[in-house]
């Protein structure tokens, strides 16, 4: 039945003259997430693939229709959980755009720091895992130390590590502590050396190059047709980056370049991600410099009607108690309107399409999840490739099951 569905045509020079059906996933350790691919293989070559998704679908869009705006931030954590702060900030900025709030520069820069740290944490995992899938576990161990350091920075800022729920509508829940800045400084000092070492291990490594060059390649035109965004699109040679195309959170104040590849294969994706990590380090440095010239006690906009007040103020100050009550009970006026806002997530353009009817929760909220959209290209990418190349190709795409299935 399956071969009827897949219209199997044996490739030229087929040795086996017969195909085998292989279930790759949903709980295969090499797929790094809950993905199922039903592969038809001829010997070791992939003839066709059918992807099945939805194993961890949690109906976030439906849940969001019953939640007040500030309670949707934890839902966004669970989309791309490798870089949760970017999702949090994206959602918060969407609401701020709807409400027309003016955000102080210092808050913007703090957000940039957090988002770039998250981007590094995400790219670091993806690049390191590509090493693991090609047989080089060492680089992974080197870089994991620094993801831990990034998680400690999150912890210092918001108290949690993986699903961060960082930030509030209007700013941050508390100011960055001196310890947080120390940890960021430490990260900026130590990480470049580790990343250089990691690149020395992999980038010009003959085995790694043989395993990734020309594997899973896609042309710029096909990539655009398939809705690729982020590093995967840039690896194919299209210099589209939301941070430049429609700047948010004062990205226009920063000086950075967009690395692009040429062939769109796994090696180019790896190179683009590594180059982006260097750019992110430079952006964080610039942000740290810019912060020095700004008053150090501003960490949220002065919008009491929307910004959840500090808990100790709620217990001691009348105004804070009133606003807290109004926000939590959904009595604040949210304007009706529809807004699309997107941020450059770690694996592509993460968009939020929000329709408000003036109620306490969104009338409709849709997440544009980059990897849901570009994962449909996977069967095309691996057609004719070896089974082991299919694994590398999957990890090079930076697929996150939580985001894919929403």
């Amino acid at each position, binding site marked *: 039945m399956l071969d009827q569905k897949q219209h199997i045509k044996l490739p030229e020079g087929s040795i086996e003259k017969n195909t085998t059906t292989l279930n790759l996933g949903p709980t295969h350790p090499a797929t790094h997430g809950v993905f199922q691919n039903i592969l038809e293989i001829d010997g070791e070559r992939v003839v066709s693939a059918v992807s099945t998704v939805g194993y961890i679908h949690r109906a976030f869009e439906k849940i969001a229709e019953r939640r007040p705006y500030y309670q949707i931030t934890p839902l966004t954590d669970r989309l791309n959980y490798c870089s949760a702060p970017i999702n949090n900030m994206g959602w918060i900025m969407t609401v701020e755009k709807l409400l027309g709030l003016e955000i102080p520069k210092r808050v913007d820069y703090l957000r940039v720091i957090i988002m770039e740290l998250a981007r590094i944490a995400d790219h670091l995992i993806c690049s390191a895992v590509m090493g693991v899938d090609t047989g080089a576990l060492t680089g992974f161990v080197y870089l994991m130390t620094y993801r831990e350091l990034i998680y400690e920075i999150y912890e210092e800022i918001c108290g949690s590590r993986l699903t961060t729920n960082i930030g509030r509508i209007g700013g941050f829940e508390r100011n960055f502590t001196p310890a947080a800045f120390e940890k960021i400084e430490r990260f900026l000092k130590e990480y470049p050396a580790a990343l250089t070492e990691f690149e020395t291990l992999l980038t010009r490594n003959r085995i790694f190059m043989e395993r990734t060059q020309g594997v899973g390649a896609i042309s710029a035109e096909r990539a655009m047709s398939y809705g690729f965004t982020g590093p995967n699109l840039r690896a194919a040679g299209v210099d589209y980056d939301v941070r430049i195309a429609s700047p948010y959170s004062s990205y226009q104040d920063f000086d950075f370049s967009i690395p692009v590849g040429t062939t769109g294969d796994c090696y180019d994706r790896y190179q683009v991600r590594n180059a982006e990590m260097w750019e992110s380090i430079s952006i964080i440095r610039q942000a740290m410099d810019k912060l020095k010239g700004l008053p150090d006690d501003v960490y949220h906009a002065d919008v009491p009607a929307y910004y959840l007040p500090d808990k100790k103020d709620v217990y001691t100050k009348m105004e804070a108690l009133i606003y807290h009550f109004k926000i939590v009970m959904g009595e604040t006026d949210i304007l009706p309107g529809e807004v*699309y806002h997107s941020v450059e997530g770690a694996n592509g353009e993460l968009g939020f399409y929000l329709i408000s009817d003036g109620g306490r929760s969104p*009338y409709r909220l849709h997440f544009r999840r980059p990897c849901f959209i570009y994962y449909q*290209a996977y069967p095309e990418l691996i057609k004719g490739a070896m089974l082991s190349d299919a694994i590398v190709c999957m990890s090079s795409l930076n697929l996150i099951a939580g985001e894919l299935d929403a």
Partner: protein
Amino acid sequence: MSLTNERIQQRLTEKFGDVLTGFEEPFGMLTFTAQKDYNLKVMQFLFDDEELRFRFLTDITAVHYPERKGEELCVVYHLHNFVDNVRLRLKVYTPVASPKVFTATSLYESANWMERETYDFFGVDFVGHPNLIRVLNVDEMTYFPMRKEFPLEDPMRTDKDDEMFGRGGHF
């Protein structure tokens, strides 16, 4: 000279006239509604036209408005022109009784799963789609869960009165 929303509107109105209505610009994004049978023609024109060049499909989704009789489901397309960096939003309304709109898979490969997702959650029937089956929910499901007639919580709960807190129980 980059493309302005006024120019896009002018160009579209020249070509399609009354087919397109409701032009507005919420938060700077040109938004308009196309008649039900024209969505693909409009998108094809936006794609092919040498001046407009909307060749990237950002997103497809739907919204359910139960109170708009005869046009309950609204399919929303977000398109992007990378060259001039302009986005626009195209809407198509379709009745929930026979929600049929034309597929965009001939223009964009990415429309395939986006339309499957929209079908999965809203039941929009994309005419001409090569493989219109559920993508995130189980195949055995018999209803379309994102429609407004499926409330998230039990509306009969008596311990919690939503009338007091913002939106009343109109689910």
